[in-house]
């Protein structure tokens, strides 16, 4: 799992709203950094990293909520929450598949067939979760989300 990036130059004496802009800027960049390979089901780490980054960004927004204009805040957090939920749906299946595939090798032979059916069902759910996620991580959607965060940060920096 990716470690959070340091927010350079964060100073406990600086105004809360300037710290807000600095932290949210870094945390938003983390979300976009993992978008490229997020739909891969061969390598599930980019999705995990993007999901954790989206959770860190939501947490930062909650912390600094008071610093942002309500309308722009809502305009940014709503699509972020949708994205985070869609990432979570995929991640739940990824985790379950990895767990079961490890278990099949050591399971009693009589249970293996049913376990394989269960994995196949989870693979189908994983595919459906990817279909739901796909439009949210398209270039267009991410550019729109980035724009909303630029607007949000612009309001504080102005």
């Amino acid at each position, binding site marked *: 799992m990716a470690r*959070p990036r340091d*927010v350079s130059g*964060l*100073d*406990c*004496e*600086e*105004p*809360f*709203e300037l*710290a*807000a802009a600095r*932290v949210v800027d870094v945390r938003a960049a983390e979300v976009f950094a993992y978008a490229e390979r997020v739909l891969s089901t061969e390598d599930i780490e980019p999705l995990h990293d993007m999901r954790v980054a989206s*959770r*860190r960004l939501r*947490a*930062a927004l*909650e*912390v600094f909520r*008071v*610093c942002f204009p309500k309308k722009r805040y809502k305009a940014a957090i709503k699509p972020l929450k949708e994205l985070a939920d869609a990432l979570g749906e995929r991640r*739940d299946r990824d*985790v*379950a598949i990895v*767990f*079961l595939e490890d*278990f099949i090798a050591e*399971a*009693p032979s009589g*249970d293996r067939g*049913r*376990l394989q059916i*269960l994995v196949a069902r989870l693979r189908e759910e994983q595919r459906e979760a990817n279909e739901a996620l796909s439009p949210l991580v398209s270039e267009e959607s991410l550019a729109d989300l980035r724009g909303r965060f630029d607007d949000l940060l612009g309001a504080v920096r102005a």
Partner: protein
Amino acid sequence: MKAQKVKGLKPDRSLGPNAARIVATRLEELRGFADDALEPGATEAQHEMRIAAKRLRYLLEVTESCFEPVGKPARLRVKELQGILSDLRDAETMLDRETGIASLESLLRTRRELLFARFQEFWEEEKTVEALDRLEATVS
């Protein structure tokens, strides 16, 4: 679960005192779930405590430098707590599928028991209690 509202935040004041208010609220929130979550089978309270731990952890990732030297040890304990509760949640979620596969359900029930015991033990460990007490003393 919605985060508890933090009163008295001032955007034009410095980060330090505002962060202290938020940490104090999030820590209280986390501890507020403990009594219920430490009961066997209290899956909802354990889930809420996991979310509260996550919120406090991510908050400390950003602000712990304002609470040196107690911020980082507290964050590391909270991170570990979140990990235990997340694994417990994963086991619960898988059990909820009611697969009817005996070996899998037996493994998951054992895993759930071990994780719950680990959660109880971890929460009462001196290192955890001390790290959270010191953080509370710093932010209050």
